[in-house]
């Protein structure tokens, strides 16, 4: 009963969805202010979500309907679970098991896989193109992402989220060291791709491939996909705060604002440029950060 409550209400689905909607509103409002506009009202993400729930759901004739409809559910379940683990680690650092960090990394990897599955199952040629882009992008950013997380693990000698938070609170945050700053910059760039935001949003580029991976989705499955993106926008800054700031609440907002500013000041790059960027620049610097962390800087 308690587990069900935790999954559905408090650190789980409802809490993450509401906080994610607030974060999504902050994202759109800051974007609007950067572009010298007024921006949408605070309930806009809620209106969008409710509207998509009311709309007709169309399953294309060429689609594999089971995978097509189950993919968004798979994504949102794993995102919720990741949120539960992260928040339990923040609220009560002693409560979880050893290796929960690795579970969170795996759970965050389910979203791109589910998106690829859903897009490939839709039977649309543009969606398959977008799925191939998403796949390449995922293969490109995941290794620098894990290396930048490794820096915290090496410096604090633990793979338990609770201990990462506790030892940062007692002996200074990771960001105070040279390798920590380097790892944080790499982490910021890779989560931009993980969230599908502008410099690396070629998988759902509206102007060239018409919504990309979500092109055939409508109604309820689209609502779940959008909600999943919104929840990720909330829990990935939380993850960053746990890894690099010791679970400090203000740093969650700071990471969010950094993400929004990167998103608003950059153009979309091509997929080959993105892969070159992640495999060359980011990978080299993240390995450098890991080496620095190992020798103690």
């Amino acid at each position, binding site marked *: 009963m308690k587990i069900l409550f935790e999954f559905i209400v408090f650190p789980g689905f409802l809490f993450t969805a509401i906080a994610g909607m607030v974060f999504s509103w902050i994202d*759109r409002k800051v974007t609007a202010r950067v572009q010298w506009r007024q921006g*949408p*009202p605070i309930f806009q993400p809620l209106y969008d979500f*409710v*509207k998509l729930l009311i*709309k*007709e759901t169309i399953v294309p004739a060429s689609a594999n309907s089971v995978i097509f409809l189950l993919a968004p559910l798979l994504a949102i379940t794993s995102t919720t679970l990741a949120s539960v683990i992260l928040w339990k680690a923040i609220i009560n650092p002693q409560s979880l098991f050893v290796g929960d960090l690795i579970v969170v990394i795996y759970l965050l990897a389910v979203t791109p896989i589910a998106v690829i599955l859903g897009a490939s199952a839709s039977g649309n040629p543009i969606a398959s193109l977008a799925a191939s882009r998403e796949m390449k992008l995922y293969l490109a950013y995941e290794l620098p992402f894990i290396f930048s997380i490794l820096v915290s693990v090496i410096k604090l000698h633990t793979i338990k989220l609770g201990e990462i938070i506790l030892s940062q609170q007692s002996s200074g945050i990771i960001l105070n060291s040279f390798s920590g700053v380097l790892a944080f910059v790499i982490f910021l760039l890779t989560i931009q791709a993980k969230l599908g935001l502008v410099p690396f949003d070629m998988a759902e580029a509206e102007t060239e*491939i018409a919504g990309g991976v*979500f092109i055939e989705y409508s109604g309820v499955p689209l609502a779940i996909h959008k909600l999943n993106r919104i929840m990720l926008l909330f829990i990935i800054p939380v993850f960053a705060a746990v890894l690099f700031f010791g679970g400090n609440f203000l740093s969650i907002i700071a990471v969010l604002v950094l993400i929004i500013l990167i998103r608003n000041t950059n153009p979309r790059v091509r997929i080959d440029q993105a892969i070159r960027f992640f495999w060359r620049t980011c990978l080299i610097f993240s390995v450098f950060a890991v080496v620095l962390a190992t020798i103690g800087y």
Partner: protein
Amino acid sequence: MSASLKLKALTKSIWVFHAACSPCNNCDIEILDLLTPRYDVERFGIQLVGSVRHADALLVTGAVNKKIVDRLKRLYEQAPKPCVVVAVGNCACSEIMFRDSYNTCGPLDKIIPVNAYIPGCPPKPEAMIMGIVKLIKALRGEK
């Protein structure tokens, strides 16, 4: 879910798909003007989307000709309902000087049902906002 909340969500978050059916591109440029920071329709939850599956409103411009008419009908069938259709510009509303042309297929409302007409050649962005406001009021049953 109550009907009023449904109506509120539907009218507060209109995602627009722009269907250019052989226009002269003047109306399209004005529609793009409408989406710029100067007029900022995202205040009202109006967004341009790339796929017709996400659309709540179809903005149709131009005098529909024989090449595009089947595709327009297909687009309308592909859009998830409820979906409104807005005819932007004189060509889509009444075909003005292309009325008896050999390759046009009649004004838009003879092809697909139309919910709102925004005349003008091209209509100003203010006129389009006015048209959308009137459409929302009609959907809510206000005068």
